[in-house]
């Protein structure tokens, strides 16, 4: 179907999708801002990694998925959890370690889970969840399903052995897995080119006979289309894909790290902020006449309310009971 034949109904569906994506990106942004605030107030502890700057990736991908598809991620997963449909309430409650949190207060920021939403965590060991993704793909194929599994990870995980082993097996067994590398250029304070012999992550696709694409992760529409193509390959043909998504984190590595340090300049961060995926989409929607500033402000106000409510929910939720210390060690 070419652009010329696009129907008004489709235009509208497209507009609706874009509006939703804008809302989701705003939700993540405001949620993460609130998280930073709550962290500063000591409501959240431990390691806490924000997603600000990378919103388009989670949102673009998520919009290409079905409810029964699997998503699995690293510790930088607040955004993916939210757009997967885990209520902001339970995500925030989890960050605060509350009993009402999506992992019952036992997981925290790095270990968000919601089995019903097929959000399979939140994992803290770099690269550790890539074999899990291959295993989820294995389970899908074994059971004859047509779901896919999307696995988010950072570019620094590419250097670890688990990446190599997981991608090889996914390819040998033709599993419906999408390995989605969020290349934000840095693993903590280390620029990728300082520790990787080949800096185009997508190059690795050829070592495993995977489909590979480089995607502009600051453009949610481009991200969405690439995700759709990858999902299609996986769902129809069981062909796994390695997506290298070029993105950037606007904040420090975690809440305990400076915004920039010796490893990147303030100028670099400022330059990147000009590509902010949210303002880009907002701008586009206004240009295309899909939304005006008032509508966008309304969206923003709505997510603001949602986030405030989530904070309040978390604040008012109880801690787990002392007895919860010893539950869930073993299943019955």
């Amino acid at each position, binding site marked *: 179907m070419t652009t010329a034949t696009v129907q008004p109904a489709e235009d509208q569906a497209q507009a609706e999708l874009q509006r939703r994506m804008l809302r989701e990106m705003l939700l993540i942004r405001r949620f993460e801002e609130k998280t930073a605030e709550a962290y500063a107030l000591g409501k959240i502890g431990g390691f806490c990694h924000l997603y600000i700057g990378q919103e388009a990736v989670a949102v673009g991908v998520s919009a290409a998925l079905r409810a029964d598809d*699997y998503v699995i991620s690293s510790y930088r997963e607040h955004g993916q959890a939210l757009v997967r449909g885990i209520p902001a309430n339970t995500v925030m409650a989890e960050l605060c370690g509350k009993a009402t*949190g*999506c*992992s*019952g*207060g*036992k*997981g925290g920021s790095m*270990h968000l*889970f*919601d*089995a019903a939403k097929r959000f*399979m*965590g*939140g*994992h*803290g*060991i770099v690269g*550790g*969840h*890539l*074999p*899990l*993704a*291959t*295993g*989820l*793909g*294995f*389970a*899908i194929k*074994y*059971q004859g399903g047509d779901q896919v599994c999307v696995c988010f990870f950072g570019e620094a995980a590419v250097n670890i*052995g*688990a990446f*190599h*082993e*997981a991608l*090889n*097996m996914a390819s*040998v*067994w033709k599993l419906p897995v999408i390995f989605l590398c969020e290349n934000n250029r840095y693993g903590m304070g280390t620029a990728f080119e300082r520790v990787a012999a080949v800096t185009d992550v997508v190059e690795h696709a050829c070592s495993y006979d995977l489909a590979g694409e480089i995607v502009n992760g600051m453009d949610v529409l481009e991200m969405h289309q690439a995700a759709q193509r990858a999902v299609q390959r996986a769902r129809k043909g069981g062909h796994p894909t390695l997506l290298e998504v070029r993105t950037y984190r606007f904040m420090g590595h975690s809440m305990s790290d400076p915004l920039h340090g010796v490893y990147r300049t303030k100028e670099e961060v400022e330059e990147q902020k000009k590509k902010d995926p949210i303002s880009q989409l907002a701008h586009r929607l206004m240009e295309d006449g899909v939304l005006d500033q008032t509508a966008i402000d309304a969206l923003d106000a709505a997510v603001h309310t949602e986030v405030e409510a989530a904070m309040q929910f978390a604040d008012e939720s109880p801690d787990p009971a002392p007895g919860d210390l010893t*539950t*869930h*060690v*073993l*299943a*019955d």
Partner: protein
Amino acid sequence: MPTITYRDALNQALREEMQRDPKVFLMGEEVGLYQGAYKVSRGLLEEFGAQRVVDTPIAELGFAGVGVGAAMGGLRPVIEFMTWNFAVLALDQIVNSAAKMLYMSGGQIPIPIVFRGPNGAALQLASQHSQAWESWLAHIPGLKVVAPATPHDAKGLLKSAIRDNNPVMVLEGEMLYNTKGEIPEGEILVPIGQADVKREGKDVTLICHSKTVTVALKAADQLAQQGVAADVVDLRTLRPLDVPAILASVTKTNRAVVVEEGWPHCGVGAQVVDIIQRDAFDQLDAPVLRVTQADVPMPYNKQLERLAKPSPEKVVAAARRVLYLD
């Protein structure tokens, strides 16, 4: 009762459980076409096909993780390590994914998985291929660990392990695969967490598991000739330990020797000693002694290897010491 080998007992357990539940599958190096490095999976590829008997690349970390992921996706994987020596590469997935998933997800995601394979030294395989990992595995909350000594227990524990909703480590023994034992026809399920008194005696308790059960039984024979009646307690499960069974025996005999294949420092025996001295302090007439592998990497030379391993003679000597006979 039919007499079969430990190998065949495991094979039966796998076959029966795979017949019973289509979600059970076997994955590992050489498990399919090659019929298993130690032939435990003989015939399974032919019966169940390549989807359920899956040969993997040499990628222990990866395929252990694939197993955990498959369990997250609703299957019940049995992952074979060609030997537990190679599982050292996979510990991150065992400890950080399998053992913790249920807890860190707040109870949402159980991991019903079995990791199995031969553990401990065989003959002259030298240091990198002669390691007994039970104390490492037993250290970890979220895991269960079993180490059957007989064909009967091998079948019964492997079947229980496959039906368990938790990650269960099944420690077999290369030197055990050919050993034979009687085993009733049909279903056998040995409950996880139950020790078994393999021989009764009132004078001294010999606590053992896996290959050291034979060592302890031989020692008991020798002790019997010396007029000492040994109670031989086969732990069978190393996590959770069957504390009541241990205490019952020690309360009866007031003396104990713990035998294991692993290294001494922080071994399973140390934990058993800890329990005994804490919970049976007033019943103890002598310190509990331990017989372990020598505290060295396993040498290749046959003579040195023999010296390094637990032996009936070493157990007898320890038993005589706790009886103050020497």
